């Protein structure tokens, strides 16, 4: 049997057993009634004790959403979602009031420990105690974590430490109460309520997410991260993240996500908004590891996410790095609005589709200011019957003199039943702008596999090495500890049997 055929079999053999995050936490939950109507929107808002302006904002979104059609232009197929058959609010019952780590339900702490997410500040600082269970607790560098469990944030670490520098890092529900002026000013300023079907739905029913504000001239001393966990059945997760980097500030933010393995599909429709003022830098990294469904394509998360950053200030920079290994269907286009002169947008992406996974992902770069620059590096890997589409838009406005874009899209195919598609749109209205696009499609060649095996690597190690090599330009953009995780995840996603 040729080596490649064997790889296909290995890949096909990837059972859900390879997904190590598929357990379910048994914890008492409070649900809103199933279904979506104005009362549910009011329920969520009331549950969070929101001010009237926010309730009005939600209701306006809901009214818009009712008139909208679910988009069908992406190259993905999935069964129709019954929006009346979902829970829009699910929260652990015991969580109340001010969130000190001592008050968090131990069952939740155990859940996060099992996922390798440290919710103990001391343990991470000391770098020893309790750090043994998790690969990410190497203790080298503290990471502040906001943990979102279904519809609510259950804990945020290192808040005191960060507050000393004037940094606000909390759940968005808390920010609504504690920093209403900031939330009111920026919420929906990058992704308006009516932006698209899923963002509009999110605007009506978002339950929690993270809020970050970095004051002028402050360089955030540690990585900030949010860890999203879907646990409850038949529940949609609608989180909303808002990050504001004031003039001359700098922040690196990480996002991770997992879900139990179930036969049903679950909806995850998030909105992330980033705002960078003059000379500010936001680096946003995602390792997306939602349950992908089993080898027959049953179950898995529908990941329909709107992520957008606005480079409002001159010389500001927003950099998106994503490693997409999970989800049954991914529909996601982290984008940059390059408004400030000399601002910079970057998009580095690795997307893997195995078995029956489908990904339609890419970016949009809007060049508005002068001398704005954008770089797009997309690496798509398809295996099994996976379908992988890069969809991108580079739009250069009439006044974006000296704008530059470089796009590189590479696709790697493993086996002969998968697909890779590249759909780049370029709209240039400025004669002085320069746009470059490069694209390649290749297979893991039999001679590469044999070369590695002849040196002593087994087939899985060989595939892992070749795929990691293929993704190198993207992986090197990740913070170091994340990069190590991502490399392992790539191998697991492809092999199934490795994990």
């Amino acid at each position: 049997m040729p080596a490649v055929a064997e790889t296909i079999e290995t890949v096909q053999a990837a059972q859900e057993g390879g997904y190590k995050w598929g357990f379910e936490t048994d914890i008492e939950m409070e649900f809103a009634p199933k279904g979506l109507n104005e009362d549910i929107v009011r329920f969520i808002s009331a549950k969070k004790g929101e001010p009237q302006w926010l309730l009005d904002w939600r209701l306006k979104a809901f009214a818009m959403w009712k008139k909208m059609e679910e988009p069908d232009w992406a190259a993905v197929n999935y069964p129709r979602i019954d929006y009346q058959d979902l829970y829009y609010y699910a929260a652990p019952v015991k969580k109340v009031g001010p969130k000190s780590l001592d008050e968090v339900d131990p069952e939740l702490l155990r859940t996060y420990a099992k996922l390798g997410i440290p919710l103990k500040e001391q343990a991470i600082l000391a770098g020893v105690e309790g750090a043994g269970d998790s690969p990410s607790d190497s203790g080298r560098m503290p990471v502040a974590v906001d943990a979102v469990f279904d519809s609510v944030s259950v804990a945020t670490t290192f808040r005191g430490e960060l507050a000393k520098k004037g940094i606000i890092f909390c759940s968005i529900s808390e920010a609504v109460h504690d920093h209403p002026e900031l939330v009111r000013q920026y919420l929906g300023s990058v992704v308006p309520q009516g932006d698209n079907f899923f963002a509009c739905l999110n605007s009506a029913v978002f339950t929690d997410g993270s809020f970050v504000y970095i004051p002028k001239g402050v360089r955030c001393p540690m990585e900030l991260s949010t860890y999203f966990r879907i646990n409850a059945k038949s529940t949609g997760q609608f989180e909303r993240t808002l990050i504001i980097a004031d003039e001359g500030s700098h922040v690196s933010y990480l996002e991770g996500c997992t879900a139990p393995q179930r036969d049903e599909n679950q909806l995850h429709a998030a909105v992330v908004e980033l705002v960078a003022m003059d000379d500010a830098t936001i680096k946003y990294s995602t390792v997306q590891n939602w349950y992908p469904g089993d080898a027959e394509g049953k179950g898995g998360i529908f990941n329909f996410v709107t992520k957008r950053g606005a480079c409002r200030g001159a010389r500001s920079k927003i950099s998106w790095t994503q490693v997409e290994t999970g989800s049954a269907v991914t529909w996601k286009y982290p984008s940059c609005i390059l408004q400030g002169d000399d601002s910079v947008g970057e998009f580095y992406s690795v997307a893997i589709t195995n078995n029956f996974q489908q990904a339609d992902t890419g970016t949009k770069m809007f060049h508005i200011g002068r001398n704005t620059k954008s770089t797009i590096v997309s690496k798509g890997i398809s295996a099994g019957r996976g379908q992988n589409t890069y969809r991108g838009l580079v739009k250069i406005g009439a006044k974006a003199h000296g704008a530059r874009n470089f796009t590189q899209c590479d696709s790697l195919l493993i086996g002969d039943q998968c697909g890779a598609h590249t759909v780049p749109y370029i709209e240039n209205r400025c004669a002085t702008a320069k746009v470059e696009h490069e694209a390649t499609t290749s297979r893991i060649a039999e001679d590469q596999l044999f070369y590695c095996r002849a040196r002593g690597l087994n087939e899985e190690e060989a595939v892992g090495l070749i795929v990691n090599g293929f993704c190198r330009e993207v992986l090197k953009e990740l913070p170091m500890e994340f990069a190590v995780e991502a490399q392992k995840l790539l191998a697991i996603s492809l092999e199934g049997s490795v994990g």
Partner: protein
Amino acid sequence: MLRIEGLTAEVEGKQILRGIDLELPQGEVHAIMGPNGSGKSTLSYVLSGREGYEITGGSVTFNGQDLLAMEPEERAASGVFLAFQYPVELPGVGNANFLRTALNAQKRARGEKEVDAMAFLKLAREKLKALQMSDEMLKRNVNVGFSGGEKKRNEVLQMALLNPSLAILDETDSGLDIDALRIVSDGVNALRGPDFSALVITHYQRLLTYIVPDRVHVLMGGRIVRSGGKELALELEAQGYGASAA
């Protein structure tokens, strides 16, 4: 000891090896010479376990083990090294990472302790120095953008690091200038000893003035048609392969 008996093999239904018998005792270096299309590369791939070559008969044992029943990586771990005629490029894969991964995969398979990054670097630098190669070699991606000569030198570097007990050199001399040929030959000669044997597959006698073989075999039409001492190579050079066919 490598023992090949009555080995026959097909590629895409076409018979290439028609009954090869060969004994390569431990500690010896044998040359296999032959014209194009005689089955030289097929023999090297069959011995190292490349897929797409169907063994239709015969046997190969290496130190008593049935080599043909083993996966390529198992053969590598048991000490078989193939220096490729056309080394393969691995974009984005650093040479140091590749070599350490390979070395540790072999060590793991043999139940030996793996080497950490620092120890590996020290070992690699020693080998580079002995082979008169620059450290730069480790930083580059595996064979990407290498000249023909650099690729062959990289094969020899890998061989030095992996320290095999049987090396199969498949036309390692092709595309080498005289300086590169000497570096490559020095690399092979440095490994010679009682625990190392090599099968040097070549079209030309030239390489054999640098790597002096204990025996020379002539492969034609998928069979060994003549065997002799090192002087046989010179005779072939003077008279061509035609005389052997007669």
